[in-house]
């Protein structure tokens, strides 16, 4: 695998013996796409095919459908429930195998699934949810014949109104394997190891507590497969994560839950979470229902009592305190890189440059579009600056200060698709952090009940042992690997259209973007 840790640094030389002592053998996960069908028998689909009593069970529909929607199992008298999620919908009418037309008795009828009206939201449209499921199932961008409108949401603003200005044809013709999607995370040249990730994103912080350990583990394994990272969030470091230490970012957040020297010493990146874009200034919340015995034990708190992380760090009220904080972690772990996660207040440019001067390697801007159901609705997208403004503001300011290439700028907060990722990079970020998308890959339906212990119908944002059993680690890993693969293909596709050999060429190319409301450009497809 490209850029594995051993090649990147002579780590043994840098480390005192005791900080390697806790390392356990690292498990490799193959970056192989394999079908990972949905875990529910009747996956939510865009279209529904109804079969009337006129059906004579002739079997014609099953015979002609290349996708396998209709299933008449041998020995059964009736059709099984159709596999609607593989049905391409009305676009099939253009083909020679459109079951609705070809049914000799006209017993089949196709309608749009009424459930879609209740599913998702403006930010995560039903099409985007289903397309993400599809990618997680197949590892490919969904074929256009499905008709998913998934590259943007329907929020009517932000990234949803940005489009790329693709040239008519690429300035140079490139093949897929000529295109590099990797980014480096240490630009300080400070003697600490270089860390390179193969894709310009890593997984966001979700604590054991906010999600189950199966989810955390699936994310970590997928991160290992793609030589990127996942983040523990604030809530401790599971024993089972240790085989993936090299792909884990451990978070130090304001509650300091589960943070120990040992956990800091395991990892290659430590993230300071000052604020979350979805709820800046509100600290962290883990409500009582989710503080199960295992969570309480991990965090060493009281069972069934809500856990509030304060805002801000009680030990950090200024930039020199922040520097001291960073120095402390650099002292504890001599090889780790430091990421500073902040939200996007009005003076985010100053925050970024201050973080840089305090010694951070990664400035992580978390905008206001993100957040699961656990973030209060009143806060989400109402406090932090929209991420598309934040990125540009910081990118330009760092450039003017002459330090843009000394720091890695990572954006997050409501980045949902490969197109969002590309847009964030074009606006000036080096890479992004994704969160909700991974949960969607695992079957999340955006019902926004993440804060409640047994509220997650999909067994994701839960710490309830019974619900968590709904997800299998191998399956979860595969779903995220598949999503990542599909995204990478899409990114490569975008770069190809611009004739760019590397994702870093796209960085800061806001000139390649148009805003449907503010510029007079005409959208190209």
């Amino acid at each position, binding site marked *: 695998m490209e850029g594995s840790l051993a090649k990147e640094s002579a780590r043994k030389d840098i480390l005192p013996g005791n900080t390697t002592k806790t390392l356990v053998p690292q498990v490799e996960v193959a970056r192989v796409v394999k079908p990972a069908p949905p875990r529910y028998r009747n996956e939510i689909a865009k279209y529904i095919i109804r079969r009337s009593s006129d059906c004579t069970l002739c079997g014609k529909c099953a015979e002609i459908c290349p996708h396998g929607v209709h299933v008449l199992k041998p020995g059964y008298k009736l059709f099984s429930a159709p596999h609607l999620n593989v049905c391409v919908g009305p676009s099939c009418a253009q083909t020679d195998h459109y079951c609705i037309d070809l049914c000799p008795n006209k017993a089949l009828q196709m309608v749009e699934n009424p459930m879609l009206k209740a599913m998702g939201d403006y930010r995560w449209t039903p099409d985007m949810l289903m397309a993400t499921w599809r990618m997680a199932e197949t590892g490919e961008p969904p074929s256009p014949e499905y008709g998913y409108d998934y590259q943007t949401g329907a929020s009517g603003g932000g990234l949803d109104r940005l489009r790329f200005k693709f040239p008519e044809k690429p300035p140079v013709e490139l093949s897929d394997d000529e295109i590099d999607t990797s980014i480096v995370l240490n630009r300080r040249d400070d003697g600490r190891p270089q860390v390179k990730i193969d894709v310009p994103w890593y997984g966001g912080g979700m604590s054991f507590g906010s999600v189950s350990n199966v989810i955390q583990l699936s994310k970590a394994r997928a991160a290992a497969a793609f030589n990127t990272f996942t983040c523990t969030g604030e809530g401790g470091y599971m024993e089972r994560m240790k085989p993936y230490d090299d792909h884990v970012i451990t978070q130090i957040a304001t509650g300091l839950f589960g943070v120990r020297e040992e956990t800091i010493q395991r990892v290659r990146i430590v993230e300071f979470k000052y604020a979350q874009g979805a709820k800046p200034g509100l600290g962290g919340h883990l409500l009582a229902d989710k503080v199960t015995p295992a969570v309480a034990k991990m965090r*060493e708190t009281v069972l069934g*009592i809500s856990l509030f992380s304060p805002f801000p760090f009680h030990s950090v009220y*200024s930039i020199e305190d922040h520097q001291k904080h960073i120095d402390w972690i650099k002292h504890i772990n001599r090889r780790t890189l430091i990421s500073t996660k902040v939200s996007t207040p009005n003076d985010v440019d100053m925050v970024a440059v201050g973080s840089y001067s305090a010694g951070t390697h990664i400035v992580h801007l978390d905008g206001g579009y993100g957040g699961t159901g656990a973030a209060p609705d009143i806060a989400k997208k109402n406090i932090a600056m929209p991420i598309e403004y934040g990125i540009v503001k910081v990118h330009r300011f760092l450039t003017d200060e002459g330090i843009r290439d000394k720091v890695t700028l990572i954006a997050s907060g409501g980045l949902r698709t490969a197109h969002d990722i590309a847009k964030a990079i074009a606006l000036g970020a080096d890479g992004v952090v994704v969160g909700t998308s991974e949960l969607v890959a695992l079957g999340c339906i955006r019902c926004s009940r993440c804060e409640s212990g047994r509220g997650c119908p999909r067994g994701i944002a839960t710490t309830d042992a019974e619900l968590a059993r709904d997800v299998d680690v191998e399956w979860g890993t595969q779903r995220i690997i598949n999503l990542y693969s599909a995204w990478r293909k899409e990114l490569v596709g975008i770069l190809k259209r611009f004739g760019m050999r590397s994702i870093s060429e796209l960085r800061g190319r806001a000139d390649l973007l148009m805003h449907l409301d503010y510029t007079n450009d005409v959208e190209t497809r």
Partner: protein
Amino acid sequence: MDIGIIERLLRSRQRLTEDLGISYPASYKGEEEGGCGVVGFCATEPVAARHIHEPSRQMHNRGNGKGGGIAAVGFIPEELGVTREVLDTFSMVHVAFLNNGVRKELEEKYITPCFDVEASSQLDTVDDWTDIPSLEAKPPDVMRYFVRVKPHVLDSFIAKNGFGQLSREDAEGEFLSQQSVRLNQEYYASLGDKKAFVMSYGRNIMILKVVGYAEAITDYYKIDDLKAHVWIAHQRFPTKGRVWHPGGAHPFGAIDTALVHNGDFANYSSVCEYLAQRHIYPQFLTDTEVSIQIFDLLSRTYKYPLEYIIEALAPTTELDFDRLPKEKQAVYRAIQATHIHASPDGPWFFIIARTLEASDRFQLMGITDTSMLRPQVFAFADGEVQVGLICSEKQAIDAALHSMSKDDSRICPIADRYWNARGGSSTDGGSFIFTLEKGEGGRYRMSCTDKFGSPVKLPSGTEVADLNGTITLSGGNGDGIASGVREHFDSGVAAVFHFFTENMPRWSLADVSRACEGLIAVAEDSRQFAGAIEVLTLLNDRRYDGGTKKRKHILHIVRTALRELFSRLPSIAEDIPASEFRLVNYGSRNLLREPHAGETTLVIDTLGFPPEGMDCNSALLVDAYVKGWRKFIVYNCAGQRFTGCGLGPQTWDVAIDVYDSDGDYLGSGIDGLTITVHGNAQDQLGQIIKDGKLVIHGDTGQTFLYGAKGGSIFVLGNAAGRPLINSVGRPRVVINGTCLDFLAESFMAGDPFAGGGFVILNGVTFDDRGNVVDLKEPYPGGNLFSLASGGAIYVRDPHRYLVRQQLNGGDFFRMTDKDWETILPYLQENERLFGIKVDDLLTVDGKQRRPREVYRKVAPAKLSATAEIESDEW
């Protein structure tokens, strides 16, 4: 209608701003400011500027070299080339020229037409600024003018503005102030390309600032030897990258006053609004500038006494407000109602130096915000020469005192008292003021009072040592005292210590010194090293009756002896037969090796080590641990950080003893080891501590044990603000003094009976004889155990001072036998460590009581029925 002088002043300033075309801004955007390092000291004898060097240098890590400043008040006239009369009656104006071309024009416009200039000079500088490494840009040329307003100019100023009610002096002050605004507007605020600005104005006061570190100023302007009664210095950490002039650096001045500031305001624009409504506008766009503007407004326009000014800045709230006398409440309520918008919100700490009316009285004061979000330490060194100090970190105080004592043997490097202020409180008001006044015989004497005017109490000893002569530490043993020490050595360390404490009350300081020499002589035999160190350590840590001797002088002798002993240890570089101890210092750090047979303890002399980074002594300690060392002594500390951090888990066999002024974050994250701090400790100690033992023979600073998860922790003195916030698991803590406020907020440490955590707060201190006595109240703060869901606090509160109002989510529970059984082992260990007897703790007003009559238990009001944590499911 007579509109009163306040209104006249405000109207006059309104005309001024209209004249200058300063318009009411649509919004306020201040320059981003980080935190900073601040230091201030004052002395009854003028002291040289170079003494700000060492404390400033030690606080480099609180700035980033992009802004430094100093201010001085109370000069010696001859050093400035003027007579006493001129210094006392004329105002000093310092103007910084960023563009020298404008000097003539500026003088003709703003100086010569309206001022009688008694003397003027350009401050001398070194030839090439690049020779001074801690400068980042060429400092401005500075002109100093001694001026008085021309009588006819002042007459017409008074007439025009209707200032008849003002004294001529006050009118002159207002004229100077307005003239400074005019000058700054034309040559600074209105320009993109800044040309000049007024650094300071007023009697007997000077401010200088540079783009660089503060101590570069004395080098660049060649004023190392310039003496003044009061000095303040500031290291700035502006977050913006490119800074080419020091306009935004601290200190900021108003008439007769200079202010430095650590922190920043969350309500900058609201404070600006408040000022704009009074026709005052910032010209340098920093929150420090508006701070001095508020201070100046309240002091000079509203003529508030200092107490009310402090109240307006840091309002008294909550329980503290309720505890004020009724009459004071009425006044404070009115002040808060009127001036709450002038109260800076957020973390801030001010140090202010000023000349008082008579121009030969000087003041140095520190004011902390109500929530005490910035670090602050005060110290008073009494004696023939008195010194008052205010700093961000205690080690900076030590550095300043040490530097001064090298120049003047009447100054002891240890202060009589170190303390913190409790912001917006009813106890001290969050502020202390050192005032220098001429006493009998025309010599200056210093007093220190809190916001309410109550003097700070100092230890009673008066006898001082001659710091030049007494401590020779020759190792001589010709007299009875030294032989007494030697004889007792055969009976063990306790016997020697007893010999010392028994004789201490009647010994002179010279005797103490001889006794310490005797100890060193005994240690010539390397097998006795450990014993000698132990005795001296006990003398350093423990409280005992010192007779009439000043305790700080005893401590100075003991610590000098300790350092002497350590320095005599065999170096790691030497190839001599094995000894128990090995010494390593900055020079020999690269020779670090595995311990040889028989070597147990590595002694690290931290002199010269940087406070953090790959080359710091704490990193060396980690390396030594990896090589197999397990016992450490760390001494000569001057703010070095992270001691004991980074050793990783399972370090039960490690012990670290720390002497002198250790830095922040000591023991943060330890998991098994034992750290003993032989003296006061700094901020952020023991964060996320997992397991192990932390013993502090003194006070400790802010956010002590934040997020702690376990360990046994013993503190002889006080913890400052916000100890044990967000602590979980099973930390078990004994604090013998008290805390400023917010003890154990969001404490989540389970059930003390089932292995959970707790805090024992004893609320005691020592009298001058070394006896344990009660503090006035065990816990003065308004917030105790707020929002806590687990664990407990056991407060020694026999007089029932604590009230339910102090709790938010907690409740008082009856002490049971089980509670006593749970905490007793910790009180016994406390007795062993500090000599605070359990029996003494249970003695109230001379009578032995039962534990439940003395201790009160605070626990979560709603104890979860299912509080027992079940086993791990995976």
